[in-house]
């Protein structure tokens, strides 16, 4: 509790805007993502029950909870991989419900996702991985004749430098070390230029120094992007989180600033266990 390098935010102590009642469209211009009453059942197992979650634009949110709490299922619903039984997901003030759209359409609208296990295109070089992730129209015939523009080349070079892989540009992605793959995947997310980034366990397999750089990068991304991080490493969560949402057994157990969450007796009981 003593040394938490949390950047104080002016809205840190505001009451949590958590309610199951729909928020009128006019009242949520600042929202980046709005998850409403999401429920998912797998063969009778309730993975998510009436989860409601709002993310403000430019926020860095950590999603924590014990195994099986529904964190990955929630990400799957937001990105279109899993269709929920009921509920809806809205992006910004658009009225289109993401749960009705395909994965690629959702990606096009501006949600990027990093998987739990680093997933890069193994057979392609680091550079090509970034090229494929670049934002833009992604139809079949357009892609057949696509050439990298000068601006796109510069963008890829910038990203490679940011993720520290500029010397590995021509290397096959499958040959990278685990931590480097994690970085490449984050770089691909940046190339995609989404407004909302969903990042599942970004520091698994990273060294201490790499973890610190990742924390720094995620903090720098917040503001311009809305960032959601799922992570088990509480040390890491403490170092980056401003607001934290705790999921437990498919429900939102608590939500608020890290300091407040850590004191919440329910959270301590189910998760922190200290």
């Amino acid at each position, binding site marked *: 509790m003593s040394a938490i390098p949390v950047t104080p935010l002016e809205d840190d102590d505001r009451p949590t805007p958590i309610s199951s009642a729909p928020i009128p469209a006019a009242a949520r211009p600042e929202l980046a993502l709005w998850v409403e009453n999401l429920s998912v059942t797998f063969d009778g197992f309730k993975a998510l029950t009436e989860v409601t979650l709002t993310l403000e634009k430019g926020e860095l949110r950590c999603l924590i909870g014990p195994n099986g709490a529904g964190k990955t299922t929630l990400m799957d619903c937001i990105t279109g991989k899993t269709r929920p039984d009921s509920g809806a997901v809205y992006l910004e003030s658009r009225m289109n419900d993401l749960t009705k759209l395909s*994965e690629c359409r959702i990606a096009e609208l501006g949600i990027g996702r990093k998987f739990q296990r680093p*997933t890069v*295109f*193994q057979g*392609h070089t680091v550079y090509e991985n970034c090229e*494929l992730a670049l*934002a833009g129209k992604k139809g*079949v015939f357009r892609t057949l004749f696509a050439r990298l523009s000068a601006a796109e080349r510069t963008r890829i070079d910038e990203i490679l430098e940011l993720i520290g892989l500029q010397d590995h540009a021509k290397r096959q992605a499958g040959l990278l070390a685990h931590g480097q793959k994690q970085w490449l995947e984050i770089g691909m997310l940046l190339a995609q230029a989404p407004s909302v980034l969903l990042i599942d366990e970004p520091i698994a397999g990273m060294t201490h120094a790499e973890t610190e750089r990742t924390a720094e990068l995620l903090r720098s991304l917040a503001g311009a992007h809305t960032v959601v991080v799922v992570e088990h490493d509480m040390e890491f969560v403490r170092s980056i989180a401003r607001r934290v949402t705790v999921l437990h057994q498919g429900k939102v157990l608590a939500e608020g600033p890290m300091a407040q969450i850590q004191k919440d007796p329910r959270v301590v009981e189910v998760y922190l266990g200290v």
Partner: protein
Amino acid sequence: MLLGGAALLIAVVIPLVAPDYLVPLLGKFLCFGIAALAMDLVWGYAGILSLGHGLFFALGGYGMGMYLMRVIAGEGVYRSNLPDFMVFLDWKQLPWYWHGFQSFPFAMVMSLVAPGVLALVFGWFMFRSRIRGVYLSIVTQALTYAATLFFFQNAAGFGGNNGLTDFKRILGASLHDPGTRKLLYVASAIALFGTYLLCRFVVTSRLGRVVTAVRDAELKTRFCGYESTNYKLFIWTLSAMLCALAGALYVPQVGIINPSEMQPSNSIEMAIWVAVGGRGTLGGAVLGAWLVNGGKSWLTAALPSAWLYALGALFVAVTLFLPDGLVGLGSKVGSKFRSKSLRPPT
């Protein structure tokens, strides 16, 4: 440079020096080379192991066969305007789907478009239902088997068991004339190089990289914003049409097309060509087609009963010892040799 030299050798020098009886055989090999490129596109690059590509090859062949039958209307054994097999079945009228095939351009367009449309529709259902891997192989195998049974029927109107044969002329030139055979050979060579260049353009484009990415991590491509179904459908349909082109060039050189060309085993053989040569390399696919078929021509003459055993053994051996085919072996040996020569003398 190397490619241009090979093109010159195959398209110009060989027909000048090869004995007449060998030209149709070599022409056949060129057609198999095109089919191998098509197979490599879909399997090597897109990871879709189709075991039904023989169907598209045969459909292209039937399109050409229908032209070759119609162009000699009235010159058959029965001197009828209908193809001989229809007279034999006591049909009085040409079925509607045979109309227009007396025109060479129409027949050629149909040879490519009909298999293309079939591939598009079938592929759409298959990819949309997210059928992949071994299930996809089984479904495509079933498709070509069903088509074989259909074409075997006399009532289907494609000559049943015997198929289409007794061709005489193509574009006014006699098919028995060695000169015509050489021209068909040259046409096949040009088609092979055209196909090679097209495939190379596709696999080196960004689309080619997306397709390979779909092969390696499909879900990730979807999260990157690519509708993977459309990409698979594109490469699948293109591959089917190239296979049909190979079939259309093949038929006038062998003089017959019948349902045995659609048998499941033919499609499996195509996969073996590509596996032997090297998946995911265009040159390897063509090389594999030539080597396997060269072996087949030789062995079926020398030891007719041994061919199927040899083919099976070859497939097992390649799967176990040469996962990257001959091209993979070549580059492995090459890199070993290079690293040896770089080592400082001790």
